[in-house]
């Protein structure tokens, strides 16, 4: 049972890596989602897969029966899914903001746009230039 799942993990991981190396950052995020899914599957297989035996301790016994499913990787995956979800959402929002401010999501364009003093559109320019008194007013103040 482990071998086909392991091969699937490899295929999905490879697809994720391919997307992560793309120039378009949206594809990068899709790649990240695939990578994260395959890593979770890898965690799952690492606990070995068994069928039909829940990890419950029978009455009077001290340990679960031999061959019961391993509950630990499932706890790990649950944690990893929650963390992965949060990080993916953050990455997406960051991407959206970058697109709004710099007008591109292509990695090779980003630093070019950064040096370009022209605003992408009227509402989003960097007008409050930094002064000796303090940083430029962030976020809300600019809008």
């Amino acid at each position, binding site marked *: 049972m482990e071998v086909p799942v392991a091969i699937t993990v490899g295929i999905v991981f490879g697809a994720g890596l391919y997307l992560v190396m793309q120039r378009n950052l949206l594809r990068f995020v899709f790649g990240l989602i695939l990578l994260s899914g395959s890593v979770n599957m890898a*965690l799952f297989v690492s606990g070995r897969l068994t069928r039909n035996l829940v990890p419950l301790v029978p009455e009077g016994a001290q340990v679960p029966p031999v061959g019961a499913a391993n509950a630990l990787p499932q706890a790990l995956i649950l944690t990893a899914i929650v963390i992965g979800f949060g990080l993916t959402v953050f990455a997406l929002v960051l991407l959206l903001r970058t697109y709004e401010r710099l007008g591109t999501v292509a990695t090779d364009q980003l630093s070019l746009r950064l040096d370009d003093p022209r605003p992408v559109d009227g509402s989003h320019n960097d007008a409050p230039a930094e002064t000796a008194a303090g940083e430029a007013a962030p976020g809300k103040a600019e809008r």
Partner: protein
Amino acid sequence: MSWLVVSPVALPLAAAALAFAWTGNRAAQRIVSTTASLVLAGLTITLLVSVSQHGTLVMQAGGWAAPFGITFVADHLAAIMVAISGLMTAATAVYALADIDPAREALGYHPLFLVLVAGINGAFLTGDLFNMYVWFEVLLISSFVLLTLGNRRAQLEGGLKYVTINLVSSLLFLVSIGLTYGLTGTLNMADLAIALKGAPAGLVTVLAMLFLIAFGIKAAIFPLFFWLPASYHTPPVAISAIFAGMLTKVGVYSLIRVFTLLFIQDVGWTHQTLLWLSGFTMVTGVLGAAAQSEFRKILSFHIISQIGYMILGLALYTQLALAGAVFYLVHHIIVKANLFLVAGLARRVGGSFELADLGGLYRKRPLLAILFLVPAFSLAGFPPLSGFWAKLVVVLAAVEARSWILVAVSLGVGLLTIYSMTKIWQAAFWSPPPSGRSVGPMPSWQLVAPVALLAVITIVIGLWSEPFLALAEAAARELMDPAGYVRAVLGDGAALRYAEAGP
């Protein structure tokens, strides 16, 4: 005593919750953040004193015996790192009072900062590999938000690079954990030390390399460092100072931990790899710095070259070398964070981070010049400051190990470090100010006091280095004796099993 071991994690988390509950009340948030940071500094020093008196302190979360529950372990290395993190927290928290603008505070700077600190301390103290991953994520997500908070273009561009590469590194870390669990069936680090001793050597080395890449990205070693100089100069100074001081050092700490406790089966391969990486890290970092002309970018590249020295100490893998690495960590965190804070002062006084726009600070603001000179000379390794002793111990260890190439590299890199520091000194402090630039007044005490405190500590470590070296040596002794770590966490029986498990 067990509450003391988790207090560096629990206190900032509780304070973060409190500060979050007071969202919208700027004064209350500032009080919570500052008080918690100062108390944290006191607690962490108490922990260090207690560890140096009683030896390794262990706390089993929820009373679940190791290796079934989550274990928190404060040995010398962890206690030293936590103490230094407490000090940095206090210094940057006070600095932030005058540095972070009200808009960023309203967006949640204080709770985020406290969560970041909890994550850093958790990563130092945990004795469980998966738990370490969780703390890494805690500190990462808060650092992501802190880095991009404010939404300026440069921040977004730097933040994207930082976020993407760190997400990939986290996934590599997670898959390495999964494979380790698949191989050994445990994730408690002490238990792993036993299990990996009897595991097939080839597989263990593959795991070691996976961990090397995952932690290497966090620690910014060659050739995985490109995200660092792209992002560290973009957020406000207080934030980049705590990043520069602590975040890469969490990666270095993790490398030291796994390559002294878990992956010591094939030192000839793993630590030799580390050795070459350390050399390249030093050289590329310092050359990168030489090409820069912005205050914080120069400092960012120097973080990389200095990480090389620490990795060199780990790679030589002798007691003296590890003591040097630990001492270097302590010295570097204080000095580097301080230099970032000074860069902030220089910008407030001189009006820019660009060296070309600065000038005349020595004549107009001699106090600022002195505050820059102390950490700068220490970074360059001038006696009698802390950097001299740190470099001396590491280089001595390299001489003892007869790695002459690395001795030459580390001395050469030291010279180039002096070049970079004199470049800043020459451009910002000595040369006359560029025309049309006026020099502002000295900033408020909240900004100057942390810088002065850290400078004094640098001098103290330099002049009375003996007790600090003794602490570093105690940490190195423990690192060279994994059986002691196993005994502290799992008891005498496990230490016996560890001794019997392999060569």
